């Protein structure tokens, strides 16, 4: 990275990735690549790696969520609610990693027009949010059910059954339906992502507004305190964990069940054993009843097919329940008290409010608080329904397409389907449909597709071993796009930190700076968790270091002494949950998982956002 000069990062058009990655461009559609024809526009922007949504190299089919959000997020800012000086967020791929930029502001006359529309449209949302949420929830359930209803056959019949021929001829075959279904599921996932952003831009904007307001009144207030003021307690995001607590309590009331749950065997073995007793069967029935939606929780961010969900990695929820049962039997309390959380939030707000001297300010504060409270829970609710529930359904369906392709040797393994982008998968399906239609002995291009898959798998492997540069291009002097600040935490400090980090080898860093997300100081051995499955190695009292966390990680927080993440601001999952459990947390350090190794003794100060490596393992 010798070409990193002071104050700027390399030009994306000159930037070269390691040669092991050669051919990476072919995996992604051309509009997702830096290009000479758009160079002038691209050079004017500041591109940084999106470690929140794409911390890993992108499998071409997993890239679909990114494509979908680029459109959805941006349009709500530019065309729907019209946040005046802000534009969308553009994406580009480099070496299988995704870089994003906040698009430069529109011309002044557009800002004026947008302000007018913003003034007309946004108040309506705030005034009617509860009703709008109910509506959102209904349509999203419907969409999910539609996706769930898509049927992908395990194999094609040798001959279509009689009932497709008479008395009411169907007129088309399953081979055609498979192609159609793929188009349908693509449309549904894109639409789901439209819904995903329906109120998120405004929720973030309201939050940022409240942060400004609170800081004007109380110069010394910490963002973690503001986070506490706005956080909702009874949000969907926390429900899966509550269900685990409830099932654990149910188990403890029936000792044969709790004894099985406490065993060191696999989830599959436990389920088998439970089926052999009445109490066990009743307990399993209860678990089945709530599994959809509450076990539709991704074991990761929900963005990668290989992460899996609780429903297909039952060892994860069963390991949580094992520890809950053990704690319950020791007389410990496992649930978070929602009332206590709400009461604490209300106390903090009331006491701060009482400090405001001016009657006018108190009025403005109340009003600002009501605005943020009216909508903020959306930021927490949508996450469960989109990234977890719906993505779980999506991945299950896509795997079925993969199974079908693998069955006929178009692919070697079902999961190889993720090595093809969403424009390519229809080619594979059409190839399969054609070969079936042509009759016995007609070949597919399976060898060709399998060769492509093998090559791409190699490139992705090389990409995983590459440490991508945090940013490209020229840092901006101002930002008005709400997500850039709130979600990616792009501030003067982060940019400076990246510039610094790009000169220093990760292994030489001994101090990291991130967001002071949850106050308190902790010192202890680090446990770097790259995947949630690594959680089995976690020892009580360790400090967790992860790229980022999500609701399926919540139970982890009962075991650890503190949390550090690479990605995420003050309202990221890790920040919220840490505050609830009173654990120190530093989020958005950018580099923690590459700098810190399991076993290093680290000290984290959630009040200042500083992580220090005290002793290397």
């Amino acid at each position: 990275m010798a070409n990193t000069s002071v104050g700027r990062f390399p030009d994306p058009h000159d930037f070269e990735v390691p040669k092991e990655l050669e051919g990476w461009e072919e995996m992604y559609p051309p509009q997702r690549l830096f290009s000479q024809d758009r160079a002038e526009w691209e050079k004017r922007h500041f591109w940084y790696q999106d470690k929140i949504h794409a911390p890993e190299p992108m499998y071409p089919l997993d890239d679909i969520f990114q494509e979908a959000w680029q459109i959805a997020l941006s349009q709500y800012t530019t065309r729907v609610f019209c946040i005046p000086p802000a534009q969308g967020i553009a994406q580009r791929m480099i070496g299988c990693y995704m870089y994003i930029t906040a698009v430069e502001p529109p011309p002044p006359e557009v800002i004026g027009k947008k302000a007018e529309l913003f003034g007309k449209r946004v108040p309506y949302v705030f005034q009617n949010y509860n009703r709008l949420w109910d509506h959102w929830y209904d349509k999203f359930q419907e969409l999910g059910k539609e996706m769930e209803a898509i049927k992908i056959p395990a194999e094609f019949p040798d001959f279509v059954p009689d009932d497709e021929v008479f008395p009411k001829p169907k007129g088309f075959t399953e081979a055609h339906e498979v192609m159609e279904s793929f188009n349908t599921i693509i449309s549904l996932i894109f639409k789901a992502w439209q819904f995903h952003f329906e109120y998120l831009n405004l929720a973030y904007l309201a939050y940022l507004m409240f942060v400004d307001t609170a800081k004007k009144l109380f110069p010394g207030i910490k963002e973690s305190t503001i986070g506490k003021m706005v956080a909702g307690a009874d949000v969907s995001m926390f429900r899966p964990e509550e269900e685990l607590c409830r099932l654990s309590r149910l188990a403890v009331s029936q000792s044969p069940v709790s004894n099985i749950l406490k065993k060191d065997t696999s989830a599959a073995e436990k389920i088998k054993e439970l089926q052999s007793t009445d109490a066990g069967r009743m307990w399993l029935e209860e678990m089945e009843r709530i599994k959809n939606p509450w076990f539709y929780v991704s074991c990761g961010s929900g963005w990668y097919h290989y992460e899996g969900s609780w429903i297909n990695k039952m060892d994860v929820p069963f390991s949580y329940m094992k520890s809950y049962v053990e704690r319950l039997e020791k007389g410990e309390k496992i649930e978070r008290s929602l009332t206590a959380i709400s009461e604490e939030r209300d106390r903090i707000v009331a006491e701060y409010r009482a400090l405001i001297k001016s009657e006018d300010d108190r009025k403005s504060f109340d009003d600002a608080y009501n605005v943020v409270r009216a909508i903020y829970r959306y930021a927490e609710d949508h996450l469960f329904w989109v990234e977890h529930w719906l993505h779980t359904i999506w991945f299950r369906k896509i795997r079925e397409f993969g199974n079908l392709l693998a069955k006929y040797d178009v692919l070697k393994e079902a999961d190889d389907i993720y090595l093809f982008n969403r424009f390519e998968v229809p080619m594979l399906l059409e190839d399969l449909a054609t070969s079936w239609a042509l009759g016995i002995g007609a070949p597919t291009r399976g060898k060709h597709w399998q060769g492509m898959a093998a090559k791409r798998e190699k490139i992705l492997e090389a990409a995983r071993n590459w440490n991508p540069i945090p940013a490209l291009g020229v840092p901006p002097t101002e930002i008005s796009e709400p997500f850039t600040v709130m979600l990616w935490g792009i501030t003067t400090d982060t940019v400076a930190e990246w510039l610094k980090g790009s000169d220093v080898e990760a292994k030489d860093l001994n101090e990291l700076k991130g967001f002071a997300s949850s106050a308190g100081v902790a010192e202890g051995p680090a446990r770097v968790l790259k995947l949630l499955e690594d959680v089995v190695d976690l020892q009580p009292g360790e400090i967790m270091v992860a790229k980022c966390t999500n609701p399926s990680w919540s139970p982890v927080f009962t075991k650890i002494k503190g949390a550090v993440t690479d990605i995420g601001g003050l309202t990221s999952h890790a920040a919220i949950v840490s505050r609830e459990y009173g654990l120190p947390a530093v989020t958005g350090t950018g580099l923690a998982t590459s700098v810190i190794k399991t076993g290093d003794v680290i000290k984290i100060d959630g009040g200042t956002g500083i992580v220090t490596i005290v002793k290397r393992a």
Partner: protein
Amino acid sequence: MADQWIYWLKELGTEHNNLVGKKCANLGELTKAGFHVPPGFALSVGAYDRFMKETEVTGRLLDFLKTLKADADNVADMPKFEAASREMRRIAESIKMPADMEETVKKYYAELCHVTGMKDLFVATRSAGPVSHPGQYETYLNVSGPDDVVKNVVRVWSSTFNTRSVIARARLGLPLHYDAIGVAVLTMVDARAAGVMFTINPLNGDESKVAIEASFGFGEAVVSGNVTPDRYLVDKITFEIDERVVSDKGAEFAYNSETKEMEYKELPVDMRKIPCLEDREILELTKIAKKVEAHFGCPQDIEYSISRSMAFPESIFLVQARPESVWGKKKKEAVLGKKTGWELLFEKATTPIKLKTS
């Protein structure tokens, strides 16, 4: 209470400012309100008046002052004031207080020894002006035994003739021989650490914080500014310790039992840079500070002491509380410009965030 000139602290309250001086009245108020204040008693301004008028002090001072020809606005005359002060204090301290007063003070002191279960209890004799005279008059620490208590009460009275007070009165055209004050006689806290706290951030007036300064030994080290204290900034509402600065404290203000004097004693090297408060003490102090502020209804400047021999949280004592003088008086102006939530949102949506990058 007309003829009464001595009171237990618990008999006093803020309403007795003019009777016993502010410090005594506030300590009484704190005691009555249930705060942990070292037990003690107060001599009213009437006691000062009796001492001055029933003995020959006033006559002798007035005689002496006839000889003083000095101009308080003339720097060259300062040595004259210094000499005069020395003489006035010599006169006052050479005269015994009326016998019945001496007897009563000793009776109160004996009762204090009895209540605390200590023979020859160590006390502090502190001045308490009815109008605020911060630091103008003097305080004597580690006074022990009935005779010494009586002697030091007189010393506090005579401190109304210290140089800076005499000059101040001369400038204001006030009588030089008389400025009635109250005296507090307080049980000494065997301070392991002590200091000052404000129920406001003294740097920016943020009322959501308690700022605590602390040093080893007695609180005079912090109050006088002779030691760089540890500093803590605590959020009053979340009880999070937002900032902690542990300083090199160098020395502590301590009692030398051989010379029977208070003195700065150098701290051992390994103690200089260790925090002098535990986290639980910081949080308990914050709780107390909030209660004191709520009781008086305005930001407070509080002195506290933490006993070496007592167990937490009984170890924490308040030795002074007064309204914070800098920010407390400022009128808080509105900062949000009467905007509605919607207007604030619109403002946020239209104002880009500046990044300092170059």
